[in-house]
């Protein structure tokens, strides 16, 4: 019957996109390079995003706080600011101040000393309750993404499993957080936003529709750069040579996609089971004895297979000017650096934020013993 349905579907909607999960192949061929990454300093509790200040310090959002981390390995840490809600995306303004996405509030500007300044709390009369990421263009314009009108950033898994019509927005405002406008609406959890190297486009990564899209800054329709990723795309960042880096929250699995189709089961699961035990992606790679298990994850002779269906995974990619991945770093199912929410080039180094494993790591950039 399902085959018949497929055939009818193909005939009636020949142009409908087939949205199966692509295999990890080509530039995405698995390796262990993310596991070989060096940890920077000690544990940070569930870090979400980082931003490099003009003073060379790294600002890290964790819970309601922003930490200022100095030193070669950013291991001298102090609390920079404490806010009203969980802090997500960060960006450093040219004047040394910081822009922070605060759950339930919107975009908050912080002075170089950590004092709370202006806020952008609504656009077009609607609250910005789910700010995810912020980026600043060369000309000073600020781009902000609002993930969803239904849930806050910390309820990302619920938002994904609810599978509602996309309701995220891309918002632009000026350097003083004024003159806010909605650039694009109906985005599916736009977690990543970056202005392209040539300054002409804004690239947005939509996590729940697994794609990378672009909007011309001069106006015009959206352009789909990559329409179907294996994972849930996370934050984007630009390096000095104009390459875009992309992080992935986790990989899609057949089981999760299946449960997303099984609406009744999914709704009942969300109603009756605690969220950390749901079927779905997780940032945390550590096992909970009561979490759902898949056949391929059963340990054989004491070994967790790295190719098992991934509940959590670590993956970052360097993209070329066309948006295609040219190099990737993986931490596979048996690995240790999972749930990467952000990746930022810092000078010549590239630092990834592993929210799942509570740490910052520095990617090994030299190609060498990566094939494993």
């Amino acid at each position, binding site marked *: 019957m399902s085959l018949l349905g497929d055939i009818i579907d193909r005939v009636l909607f020949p142009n409908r996109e087939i949205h199966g999960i692509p295999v990890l192949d080509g530039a995405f061929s698995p390796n262990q390079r993310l596991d070989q990454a060096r940890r920077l300093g000690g544990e940070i509790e569930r870090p979400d995003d980082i931003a490099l200040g003009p003073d060379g310090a790294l600002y890290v959002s964790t819970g309601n706080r922003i930490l200022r981390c100095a030193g070669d390995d950013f291991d001298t840490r102090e609390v920079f600011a404490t806010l009203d809600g969980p802090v997500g995306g960060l960006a450093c303004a040219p004047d040394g101040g910081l822009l922070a996405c605060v759950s339930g509030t919107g975009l908050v500007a912080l002075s170089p000393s950590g004092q709370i300044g202006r806020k952008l709390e609504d656009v077009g009369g609607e609250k910005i309750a789910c700010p995810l990421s912020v980026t600043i263009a060369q000309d000073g314009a600020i781009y902000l993404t609002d993930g969803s009108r239904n849930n806050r950033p910390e309820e990302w898994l619920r938002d994904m499993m609810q599978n509602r019509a996309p309701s995220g927005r891309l918002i632009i405002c000026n350097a003083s957080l004024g003159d806010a406008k909605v650039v694009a609406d109906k985005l599916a959890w736009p977690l990543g936003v970056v202005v392209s190297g040539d300054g002409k486009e804004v690239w947005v990564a939509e996590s729940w529709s697994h794609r990378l899209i672009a909007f011309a800054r001069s106006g015009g329709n959206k352009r789909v750069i990559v329409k179907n990723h294996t994972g849930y795309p996370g934050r984007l960042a630009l390096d000095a040579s104009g390459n875009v880096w992309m992080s992935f929250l986790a990989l899609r699995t057949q089981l999760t996609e299946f449960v997303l189709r099984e609406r009744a089961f999914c709704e009942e699961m969300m109603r009756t089971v605690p969220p950390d035990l749901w079927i779905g992606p997780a940032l945390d790679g550590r096992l909970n004895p*009561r979490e759902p298990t898949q056949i391929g994850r059963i340990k054989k002779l004491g070994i967790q297979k790295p190719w098992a269906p991934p509940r959590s995974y670590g993956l970052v990619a360097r993209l070329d000017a066309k948006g295609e991945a040219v190099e990737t770093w993986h931490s596979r199912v048996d690995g240790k650096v999972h749930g990467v929410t952000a990746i930022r080039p810092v000078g010549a180094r590239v630092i990834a934020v592993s929210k799942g494993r509570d740490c910052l790591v520095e990617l090994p950039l030299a190609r060498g013993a990566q094939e494993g």
Partner: protein
Amino acid sequence: MKSLQRFWHRNSPQLFLGELLEKRWMEPIIPFTLTIAVFLVFASTIPNYLKASSLQELMRNFAEQGMVAVAMAFSILSGGLDLSVGAVFAMANFLAIYLYLILGLPLPVMVVLVILFGAAMGAINGGLIAYGKTRPFLTTLVVLIIVRAAYNKVTIAFTNELASIDLGSGVWDFMGSGKILGIPVNMAALIVLAVSTHFFLTRVKPGVHIMAVGSSRKAARHAGVNVKRVLFSAYVISGSIAALAGIFYAARQNSSGTDTGVGWEINALAAVVLGGISLAGGRGTIARAVMGAAIIFMLISGMVRLGISGNLTTAVIGIILLVAVGFNVKWVKNKGKVLQKVYVTPSWVDFEPPPSVERGSGTPFAENDRLKNAEAIALNKIEGPEDIILDRNDNLYTVNRNGSIIRFLAPDYEVREEFARIGGRPLGLAFDKDQNLLVCIAGMGVYGVKPDRTVFKVTDRTTRTRTRLKDDSRLYLADDLDVAPDGKIYFSEASTRYELADWALDGFEGRGNGRLICHDPTTGVTKTVLKNLAFPNGICLSHDGQSVLWASTWLCQINRYWIAGPKAGTSEVLIDNLPGYCDNINRASDGKYWLAFVGLRTPVYDLAMRNPGFRTRMVKQIPPDEWLCPGINFGCVVKFDDNGVVTESLWDPGGQSHPTITSIREHKGYLYIGGLENNRIGRIRLEGADPSWEAHKSYWGGA
């Protein structure tokens, strides 16, 4: 409404359908249906078609064609082709008339000579093909042309003699026009031939070898089959059967015309293909060839009787053949897939929320670190020790996934030796009174190993369920066993629908597919004690020897089956709604019982067990590696008493060294831990346990 749904899922007709499709006799379902359909169509369109005389006439005309199809089937089943059957048939027809009616040889002599002729033609075919390594198609085509040409020559040469033949004896007439129980003689002969050749091909060694060579020449050779001789014999048999058909045809027609047997090889080939016999060889039955022949014969004769023109008849038959063959090929090829789609039939299982296993929750199941520092025995020297047992000399026995029983010698268990190699997948272990090691073997049954290492079979079959389509007499998945004081062996068969590798599918069904079986060594009788149990796993005799404790893995229950006392023969639930999936049960030194949890219940899987449709679709839509399964990466050990009260639990948090625990065995103050998928056996010292207690003494007494 809910109970109705539950009833529906428990007794779904899909179960019946799945087991029906599994039957081998379901393969020719398409030709069989078509035969019936064609017959019914003509029966309703042609007047008097069903009258006895009409049917007899049909059968009489059909028999020889059926025989030629059987001859063709032999060559095709052997992996070749015999195009010469039509010509050999015609020549045999001529020879029968010539030898018997013209030369006047005695009937038996003639029959032997004619069949020898057919065998000789077959020998030419077979000799060239088997020993000369020529192509069957070309070889038999050449023989066809030569024999046909010879036939045309001799029929012309003997035209006068053939025209003025005397009629034969009574026996000859009986062969041509007699009846046995209302069935024409030649038809009766076809039936005898079909039954005996079917028996030959499936039950007799040379016949089975023909099928084996047809399936895979290479595999047959590796198995020690003389491939050349078998091929040769297949063609000799084919030729002989074609000659036999010729004799019956001669007896019926008493003439030998120029068109006798023309095109019969094509009809026979079409019949065989229509019947669903694979042209690649090795797959198919004689019955299919006969069915195929019957379809073609009925179509041709029926259309002739309907007065349809010859050309149109041929075209219609061609089209029907094309459609039927295409459909049949698809069916044979995809039957397995259809079976796969309909076989798994999940049932509806409702669970209450289980007791908490959270650390510090205060329940006896609360997570702790007691197994964390378990000493590893046999690390990486063992693959999948599902069960472990210790003998009176403290030696440790366990099972390996390659089908052998491994022994580690006391006192340090460093020396590893293969105690016995049986095969299958050995699972549960037990010692009987004479220190024979009894073992349940998935896929084989229950076996035993004597102390001198000789292996003997205990039992591999039980009583068959009469009301069930599937033959469940053979033991599919014997899982664990224990021995009662009177020497009777009680063992569990976890599932009668799935093999061990498919345990997860049985779990998705959650239905009572398993059994509790008892074998009495004194009488040698094995009989099923309890049926329809949901994955009965661990088996343990209670300390008082009055009852058998058995664990239901999917229902997370411990049950008690009374074998003695006032409640003998009844079963009751001892503990329900455990937080983990139960595996083996064994006696503890303090009069209680150890129970292994192979995995922990997860809220999502419990939810899935209430949703049969969800599980069905999951099995159909996503690959096996991705299926949601019980959380068997985390096990623990618990202890319970005769009243069904759980008193304590032992944990390895995170499942670092013991992810899946399937077995525990207490011995002289130590607890030994085994796992179905593990690479080690764990051991911990039990504080306060009797350091002299051993299971053998507990069962059989003695110092």
